[in-house]
């Protein structure tokens, strides 16, 4: 008998996300740290989401489960696996149908996506050869600043002026930041320099794919307020604010695709 529930699971390099929808709305969400084994990651995050829905006992109860993931990673027990690019596009478009450009800042890569008026993907570019500007980079910066992500994300908002970070590589950027901190340069100014350097990368990727309003940021780094602010200033365009957690866009898109395919 059909349960009326559909799930999407997004196995990322750093975090794994799950979203459960029924025919009308999102009914459950969960995010966990990714394990080495993508199947274990997927099961763990889905089980966490399932606990929020009393009508579902296990993964087998979904009418359809769509998996997605980083690179060639798949959810082995999913009914279908779909590219994360498509899932992010659908997820963002579902939240705001006027989105035409997306920058997805994940744990280990950056993607820019151009969206058609019907919500399908038009074009994309990726930077998956370099960790600079990704979640890994911000993790490293938080370590250097000896602070948590939320605190770091607001630090730059207090700065009046940025200290530019000249290194292109995240490894060298870390050394450069350490050096600046040891010279007692204002932390908020350094933080603003970091945000601006990442924003510049995002902007360059968006320009390559064709920048068009409205613009959305997805992925965990979308919760970095300083980055969103820096990108808004560089683009001179507003970034869409989703009611949903932007980190869930891939999983949400997968869940919508699961629902649509049934």
């Amino acid at each position, binding site marked *: 008998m059909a349960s009326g529930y559909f799930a999407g699971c997004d196995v990322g390099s750093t975090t794994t996300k799950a979203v459960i929808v029924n025919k009308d709305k999102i009914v459950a969400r969960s995010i966990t740290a990714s394990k080495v084994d993508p199947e274990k990651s997927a099961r763990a995050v889905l089980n966490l989401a399932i606990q929020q829905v009393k009508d579902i006992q296990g993964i087998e109860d979904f009418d359809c489960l769509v998996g997605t993931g980083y*690179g*060639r990673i798949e959810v082995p027990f999913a009914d279908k696996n*779909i*590219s994360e*690019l*498509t899932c992010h*596009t659908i997820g963002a478009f579902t939240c705001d149908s006027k989105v035409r450009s997306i920058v997805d800042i994940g744990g280990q890569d950056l993607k820019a996506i151009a969206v058609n008026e019907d919500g*399908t*993907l*038009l*074009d*994309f*570019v*990726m930077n998956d*050869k370099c960790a600079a500007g990704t979640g890994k980079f911000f993790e490293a910066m938080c370590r250097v600043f000896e602070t948590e992500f939320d605190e770091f994300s607001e630090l730059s908002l207090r700065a009046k002026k940025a200290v530019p970070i000249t290194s292109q590589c995240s490894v060298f950027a870390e050394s450069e930041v350490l050096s600046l901190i040891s010279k007692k340069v204002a932390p908020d100014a350094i933080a603003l320099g970091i945000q601006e350097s990442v924003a510049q990368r995002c902007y360059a990727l968006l320009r*390559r794919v*064709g920048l068009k309003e409205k613009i959305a940021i997805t992925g965990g780094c979308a919760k970095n307020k300083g980055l969103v602010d820096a990108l808004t200033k560089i683009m001179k365009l507003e970034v869409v604010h989703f009611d949903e957690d932007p980190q869930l866009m891939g999983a949400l898109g997968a869940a919508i695709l699961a629902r649509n395919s049934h």
Partner: protein
Amino acid sequence: MSTPQVNASESILSSTRDNWLLWKSIGKTYFGAGKTILKKRGPKILADAKQYPWIGELADLRSFFRSVSGRNGAYRKAILTLFEATATNVVDYVADVLNQPERVVYFQSAGLALTEILKSMDLVPYIDMGIPVVSSMLNPSSMAVYMDAAESEGVSSDICSLGRAGQGILFKGHYPKASVIVGNNGCEGQVNSSLLYAKKQGLPLFILDMPNIYNTERAEEFFARELRRMIEWLTSNTPGKMDWDRLKEVLDIRNRQEEAKLELWELMRLKPAPLAAEVIFFSQLIAPTFLAGTPAAVELYEALCECGQENIRKGVAANPNERYRAVVWHPFMAVHFHIYRYLELKWGVTVIQDSMSYSETVFVDTSSVESMMRGLARMMLNTPMINIARGTAANYFQTFEQIVDQYDIDLVLVGDHIGCKSVAGMTGLLRDRCRERGLPAAFIPYDLIDPRFASMSDVMTRFDQFMETVMKAEPLMETVPDIV
């Protein structure tokens, strides 16, 4: 052309025929190559293999033969014909280089071949890119040791992997002996190579100055004078002497070679295409370089055309599931050349033409020395690397538009070779141009002969993502056999 219905017994018969083609080709290739080695080098080849380890890499041809898996009939035959010609002629070429070091002219090619001139002077060409490209097609990791050697000596890792491989072969002392070096300014990644080779080996060096604006009378006149200057220099610095009558013969054959090539290219305008991929770019890799101006080049193109005609007579396409006609823009992925088979079988993409093959076809007027020199100048200035990878953006886009229009292209596969800075600078404009024309374009970052930057798996994933998300295509099969 429509794809005819095939019954079970016909299917078994064609499968048997295809297997027979493969095994026959394997036998013919190894027998032919072995015979040439024994005749030209004899037992010395063992010492050669020790002194030049890349010779061992050239002996393992499995990658070539694996590439016909899933490709059938006359298309399979065409590819096998190409590989047979490659193997036997590369062996011949290497043997000549080792046998006559005093006559060897190392030339930094950048796609520019001086074979016709050198052979007419009874000199032996050593094409610097030949070994790295062919070797990396056979074993993608084969050039890693040389690239690492170059970087250990201080060569920047930013330069093209082809340049680094050649330089690494030099640093490791695995370079065959030569008498002189001829360089050119055709390829930014290899410009410094000639200087390095000359310095390291203490050999005389001549640099051909190739004008950036290439398609004018003035450029042709200038370059014809450059070629004369080079010939005079070679006469002074090597045992070679120009035999103008021989050059005329070579160029007459070259003209026939160009006619046969044009016929092959003309076949590619048919939909669906009777041949594809390696038949185009590999024939252009081999014929204008190793085989230029020889009857073997004419025979090769004629054999390929015959395979194409066979498919046309039978009403059969190279790719029975052809859905998209693609141009490969920027260098074809030498180190991952199996990707074209992958795209054919999984996504129905047929590669029709490529930017490193296509150029204006030049027929040389052999009625006088002056007309021959002008013709050679024009021919060389039209070499794709010379007119696309440098000079003005107009050159680049003119060629692009010609290919797209002539071959009715509906998909652009861009080998985004990270080592080529001059071409990388055009990427944004190319994207814009593709958008203006409504042409989907896949930009796949990779390094020409270094699989460590982007592995075969990375490249397949990128193409899969593009086909699934941008083209919204359904795969024809989940897993393509014999992809390593």
